[in-house]
């Protein structure tokens, strides 16, 4: 996984709450078996509307998404994270994220930073007034900085460390193979197995 330390880029104000993963990428785009190439599915239904903010010329090239609360609810599809990343987003800011989406983001190096809703509102206003504003998201300092404002954000220590180091979970876990072996030795024998198959 790529390391994430600090990112500076322009931001998209998405004034919506409850942006579920069906909106981030509709199900018809989930049929691919690759891990990349999902940018065309990002907000596909909304992007069909020329008035949708992501279609506005002044917001082309944005990389920081500033969203309403309860971002990423619904389906567990990691394709939602892939679509955001493939489109070019590096960071999503929201007052509240759905758990699975947040977990998926951490696996793929997309930073989901929790800000207070009042700070989100200030950010919305700032980048609506001036879409050219550059927003800096500093994971080291846990800060969002823009035009003299400094907003602190929440991210847990472990996720922060993994993102800063760009670490892969499977490799980390496999260092504890002996502990997994030992646990398996103690599992009760009444626990079910799928094989051999019974029907």
């Amino acid at each position: 996984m790529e390391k994430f330390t600090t990112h500076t880029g322009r931001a998209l104000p998405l004034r919506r709450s409850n942006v579920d993963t069906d909106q981030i990428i509709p199900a018809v785009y989930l049929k691919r078996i690759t891990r990349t190439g999902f940018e065309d599915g990002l907000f596909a239904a909304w992007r069909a509307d020329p008035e949708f903010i992501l279609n506005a010329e002044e917001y082309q090239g944005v990389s920081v998404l500033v969203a309403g609360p309860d971002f990423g609810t619904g389906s567990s599809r990691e394709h939602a994270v892939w679509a955001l990343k493939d489109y070019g987003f590096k960071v999503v800011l929201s007052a509240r994220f759905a758990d699975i989406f947040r977990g998926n983001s951490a696996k793929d190096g997309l930073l989901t930073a929790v800000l207070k809703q009042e700070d989100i509102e200030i950010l919305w206003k700032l980048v609506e007034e001036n879409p050219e504003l550059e927003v800096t998201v500093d994971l080291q300092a846990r800060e969002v900085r823009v035009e003299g404002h400094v907003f602190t954000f929440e991210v847990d220590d472990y996720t922060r460390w993994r993102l800063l180091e760009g670490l892969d979970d499977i490799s980390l876990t496999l260092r504890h193979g002996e502990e997994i072996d030992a646990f398996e030795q103690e599992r009760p024998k009444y626990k079910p197995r799928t094989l051999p198959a019974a029907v």
Partner: protein
Amino acid sequence: MPHTLAEKVWADHVVRSADGEPDLLYIDLHLLHEVTSPQAFEGLRQANRAVRRPDLTIATEDHNTPTLEIDKPIADPVSRLQIETLRKNCADFGVRIHPLGDAQQGIVHVVGPQLGLTQPGMTVVCGDSHTSTHGAFGALAFGIGTSEVEHVLATQTLPLKPFKTMAVTVTGALAEGVTAKDVVLAVIAKIGTGGGQGFVIEYRGEAIEKLSMEGRMTVCNMSIEAGARAGMIAPDETTFAYLKGRAHAPSGADWDAAVAYWKTLRTEDGATFDAEVVIDGDALTPYVTWGTNPGQGLPLSASVPDPETDFSAEVDKTAARKALEYMGLEAGTPLREIKVDTVFLGSCTNGRLEDLRAAAAVIKGRKVADGVRMLVVPGSARVRLEAEAEGLHEVFLAAGAEWRFAGCSMCLGMNPDQLAPGERSASTSNRNFEGRQGKGGRTHLVSPLVAAATAVRGTLSSPSDLAA
């Protein structure tokens, strides 16, 4: 210190615990389907890794599969490739699969329980948010993303931070015509789509204890719609009776040992939850959604709310305005007057035999209203066979409904079963998100009883609205 059910199951699966790190949790059962697994298997191949425990892993095909003409090749080449990829991955890595056409194929969350693979006190995961369904057995079951699918395939574990616990107590007895679906829609309307965020919900109380396993699965299934990672119900005699004799349930001395353990899986007296919610089960009536998230629900007897006067927070007003615009609804319209085009009976929420029986009892001897189409999609091939053995298909067909093959179908419209733009459905599924059932489609979530009555009247209705 006394512990909750969720804490006990968690503690029994901790492989490793260290300060400043998530716990490493052992996974007892890993369910796979075609949509969220291809990239995980590809990751294994690239790293030259095997599936650690094929004997704790099982796959089926559900999201993409057609519900008509299942003997023919899948028409959509992209869907077909995804299905074929799952079959190849399972063959290459030694994973059991129940493909389309197999008698055990079906929605992954219907298949696990019916095979007896889902049991109390287990950890169950799947790359699907409705994995919470399996919590009905007192298992800790939750949806994961594709990176985590790969992690479980490779290690049979997951690094996880402990969840908070929430008790949702449903007191009293449900009135006739009030179902598990109405209970969970009422819970979500009360706590909101983010209300359960970070929590495992334990459903308790008299109304929950009286539910069948099917009803409990419906309740736990939609925990995710309240933002919760999982929902659980303590196992009891209803649970044991459901499991006894199933293909993968323990037998003989193993059964006795298992039941002895399962009986310990209860929240201990004096244990504290991080949050508690109480719902008056006696007062519940059929619930339906009016908006575009599952928290936007009301009793069927209510009217479409007014964004300007019925909400206080600006963010809720905006959400309601956008929802009414998308849904094509006017504030103040009685919900019972909303006309639908399509009724969908099925999904991992309400596609089990009991759901089909309940709907069939309402629709028997009646007709689906003119201009309304009704799709009945059993949750699994076995549910379909069992329903046919009882003659339920004849009831639906005689009423003018369509009797389909098993799968996720119109719940998410990945296969050809979709709403057309502007089309409105009453659906027993779990999500009324914009475009979920087809681009521009409008969804009202309902129980199987309301679905059947709505099909007959053509407007959102409960069985009590039907003339005797």
